[in-house]
């Protein structure tokens, strides 16, 4: 299919195909939003709020790195708003961390996507630690309390551990159902 595209022959854009492309393009945003809503459900996981933030951060970073066209900045912004509303965090804070993580992913995109998984993971570790630290510092500042550091460490830890697992699934999706070229 890729060869046909390169040869300059474009498939006729029927309504069904256009719908398919839109569905594939919106896959990253919709699955991330679904993950946020799922992890806000009463699953009774220990540290569930951390799982929620960490999972969404993994998705935002992954798609920012590998398919930013399917997760535009506005979608990242709206995902952040959703996360903030679900999480009762100061509104705008998760938006900010998501956008910064996304911005870093975009910036590193050219070099990082050519490197192996391990280096991408190392890059993500720095992003996860920095965003947990930012959230902790900003929430402490906004609530005038010195908040427990353990919660932030747990969040960073979960994000770091979760990324390889999520990346397996997301990489597969990236090459199949999230690829608009396959429509």
């Amino acid at each position: 299919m890729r060869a046909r595209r390169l040869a300059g022959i474009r498939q006729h854009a029927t309504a069904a195909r256009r719908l398919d492309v839109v569905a594939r393009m919106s896959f990253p945003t919709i699955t991330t939003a679904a993950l946020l809503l799922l992890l806000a459900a009463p699953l009774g996981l220990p540290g569930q709020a951390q799982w929620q933030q960490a999972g969404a951060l993994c998705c935002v970073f992954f798609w920012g790195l590998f398919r930013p066209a399917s997760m535009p900045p506005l979608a990242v912004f709206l995902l952040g708003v959703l996360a903030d509303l679900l999480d009762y965090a100061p509104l705008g804070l998760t938006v900010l961390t998501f956008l910064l993580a996304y911005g870093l992913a975009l910036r590193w995109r050219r070099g990082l996507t050519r490197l192996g998984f391990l280096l991408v993971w190392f890059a993500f570790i720095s992003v996860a630690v920095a965003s947990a630290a930012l959230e902790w510092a900003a929430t402490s500042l906004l609530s005038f309390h010195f908040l427990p550091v353990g919660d932030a460490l747990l969040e960073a830890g979960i994000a770091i551990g979760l990324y390889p697992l999520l990346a397996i699934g997301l990489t597969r999706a990236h090459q199949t159902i999230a690829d608009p070229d396959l429509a």
Partner: protein
Amino acid sequence: MIRLSIPFRQALSKLTLPVLIAGAFGLLLLGKADTVVMQRARMALADVLAPVYGLLSEPLSSVRNGVDNIRHLFTLYEDNARLRQENERLRQWQAAAQALDVENTALKANLHWIPDPAPSYVTAHVVADAGGIYARAVLLSIGPGTPVVKGQVALDDRGLVGRVTELGSRSARVMLITDISSRVPVVLENSRAHAVLVGNNGAHPRLMFWPEGSPPVEGERVTTSAEANAFPAGLPVGVVHYTSGKVAELVPYAQLDRLEMVRLFDYGMRGVLPPEATSSKPGSEVKK
């Protein structure tokens, strides 16, 4: 679909990202300046989600109970021995309680005691954790028209849980006594000394500000005090426990990590500060 060239798309994304980051800062400022709008947005989303999560919570809790049952099978023998012991002890207490009850009734009759009016309450399902990373709260699903107001006291079957801080039309958010901004005026039962229970986002809130000379004693019962008119006197809260670092903590009676249902008591708000004033920082009025 509009097809843009890759360089143009990149340029556009370079422009939109800083604008959106500025927007995030704007949201932060707005959230700090106008908490009412933010609370309304949150509770609007909670109102939509609470019934859905309410439906989900039933099968989820039955799964959890199933897992618990399997785990209990392995500890059956020890559980039995422990329960038999506990039963013996409780039987003695039951006899003592019955005797005290009879005596209490007789004394009250002699004193022409005016009984406290029984408070009205509603029971609500806990449908989700509503604390986030840096707060401890739960979301309740309440039917529309249920008489719930801000500031109502939430208890589970064992003890104090917290207070209603935010209210939607189908949901209510209860801030737990373990939340970092929770302050509850309490009484140490043996010495009748007053103290303040300060949440720290951990499982065990700390006891502070007791009068000199009457420190909390390990294992002492702690109940609420009517001091700041935020809680009625005498609700069971927990027992005192000292950490290895000699810090007085409280082990709550309520099972705050596995709340399924809570009762919201209406104590008539007599003398209680207006809920609007207490809702943003419950208990802040007791900070001295």
